[in-house]
């Protein structure tokens, strides 16, 4: 028995091509079922995300299996003859799936969203009665491998975007953000993204101050916050824990001499300043004040880059872990049974996957 994988992803095809092969979520299960019923194939799973479309099948004969997959997809109006499509068989196919679910094949190395997407794809295939012994075992093992890789390495460590780095630092200062008040100075795109990430973590309240009050109101509504007139932001400032500066002012909006007396009134309460503006909104000297932590766009980007580097350094360890599991699974495949014994193990594994999503 061989595991076959045919597909394309963000490395092999641009979005213009990938979108032509996209399959709607509600069709994935039926599609997988029909794929698995083709002559020469037994079982099928279809993974379709914004970065990849991949078809998995189990077959006794790899050449005949791939030919059956191509015929089936051709019949669905999908021309898979181009260079953008990769074909993996045997250990290569197993390894590819293990790398995908572990986030090693993702656009952002180590991202974890893919695991949930693959679990959903597998669940859809299960519900479409498209899987049986081999793919059930393969996907179950893949989820275990992903868990092991995530738990025992730093592949998911740190934040790899400016917004998430800011959120992570905020959590490192305040712990849970539910008691934090955020103030945004300047309703720009970057400040909105960062505030959105903080809002998603459940901050207590958000104030938005902008030269254009209408724009402040619009952003405040989206963040369930409160708009304030730009001239009035200092009066609302004493209760703020996180300040995001993103105005287009040519000078510092917040200076050391402004902030020092405010911080003296609240010595036990830190202030995290995120300066996303260029030129900068916040005087770098404020970082000298006790309890004030200032990060500008460059320092946040540096943290994101550092995290990505840490993840890259972990690649070797992850690959070694995966290699062991590939060998193990390939040995099991050698001794496994017929291609289409669908009743075996399916129901229990479906329950287990549902629990994991």
């Amino acid at each position: 028995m061989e595991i076959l994988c045919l597909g394309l992803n963000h490395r092999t095809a641009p979005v213009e091509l990938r979108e032509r092969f996209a399959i709607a979520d509600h069709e994935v299960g039926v599609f997988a079922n029909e794929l698995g019923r083709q002559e020469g194939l037994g079982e099928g799973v279809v993974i379709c995300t914004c970065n990849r479309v991949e078809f998995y099948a189990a077959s006794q004969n790899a050449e005949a299996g791939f030919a059956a997959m191509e015929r089936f997809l051709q019949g669905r109006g999908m021309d898979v003859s181009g260079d953008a499509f990769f074909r993996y068989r045997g250990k290569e196919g197993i390894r590819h799936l293990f790398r995908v679910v572990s986030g090693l094949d993702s656009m952002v190395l180590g991202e974890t969203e893919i695991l949930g997407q693959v679990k959903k794809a597998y669940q859809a295939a299960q519900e479409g009665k498209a899987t049986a012994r081999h793919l059930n075992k393969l996907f179950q093992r893949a989820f275990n491998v992903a868990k092991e890789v995530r738990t025992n390495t730093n592949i998911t460590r740190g934040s790899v975007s400016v917004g998430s780095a800011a959120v992570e630092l905020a959590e490192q200062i305040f712990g849970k953000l539910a008691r934090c008040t955020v103030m945004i100075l300047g309703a720009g795109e970057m400040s909105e993204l960062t505030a959105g990430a903080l809002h998603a973590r459940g901050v207590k309240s958000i104030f938005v101050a902008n030269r254009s009050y209408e724009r402040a109101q619009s952003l405040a509504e989206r963040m369930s916050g409160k708009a304030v007139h730009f001239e009035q932001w200092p009066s609302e400032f004493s209760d703020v824990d996180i300040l995001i500066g993103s105005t287009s002012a040519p000078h510092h909006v917040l200076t050391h001499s402004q902030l020092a007396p405010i911080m003296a009134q609240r010595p036990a309460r830190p202030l995290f300043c995120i300066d996303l503006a260029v030129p900068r909104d916040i005087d770098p000297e404020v970082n000298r004040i006790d309890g004030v932590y200032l990060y500008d766009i460059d320092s946040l980007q540096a943290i994101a880059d550092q995290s990505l580097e840490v993840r890259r350094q972990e690649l070797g360890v992850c690959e070694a872990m995966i290699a062991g599991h590939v060998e193990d699974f390939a040995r099991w495949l050698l001794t496994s049974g017929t291609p289409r014994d669908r009743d075996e193990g399916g129901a229990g594994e479906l329950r287990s996957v549902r629990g994991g999503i």
Partner: protein
Amino acid sequence: MDRISLVISTLCFLLGFAYTMYALGARVYRGSPLNFCAMVAGFGFQTVWLYQRGQMVGRCPLGSLFDLLVFLAWSVTLLYLLTGTTYRLSLLGALTSPLVFLLQGAALLMETPVAVKSGTPVKPWLELHAAVSVVAYGAFALASIAGGMMLFQERQLKTRRLHSFFFHLPPIQELAAANRRLIYVGFSLLSVGLLAGVLNGVAHVGLLRIVSAGVWLLYAFLCLALRNSTISPHRVSWLAIGAFLILLLTVWTVEIVARG
């Protein structure tokens, strides 16, 4: 006296210490049951040793620097185990094992003082005074660890050079809160201990009285400043470390008094 249980206990803390160092070095530190199990086992052997020692001297074993160091290590471990799961599983908990190992290791470098059963009857207030005061010292020791970690983390944040285990540290505000709580707990226990000493008439020990009063005043000032929120966590941390170092000096005072 056979030191086997004390040696095993110290080895348990060494294991916890070594694991923490390895995990931090390998950048895979996570709250591990290994460190916790090592601490529990170490605590068990410590307790056995102290019980045996107490039986031999016929009172709470606090009559020498050797005994004091072991009892202080026991107090730190006890507080570590009582402080709660979140604390235990964090790096703050993991860094307790090195402190306990150092305290007990220092004790093991000394000769075990000959245990002489005192002919005088046990004075309960005196026993309470000594034991509760040392447990208070344990709380101050943990407060100084929390303070050290808070300063380390703050420095990383200020300089924007984040070490790989930065993200394993508890949040700054939680460390500040832990520091505050431990200082309050330690101060309450120290006050009870001193009161018990006064009731027992320990006041005749001149040098010890002055040192104890000094330590009490130092922590009273810290508690007052914390209560009125007039001091930043940064300064509290420095004071917690400084006060504990002064407090360690008082341990030598006890030795001098014991010899005197």
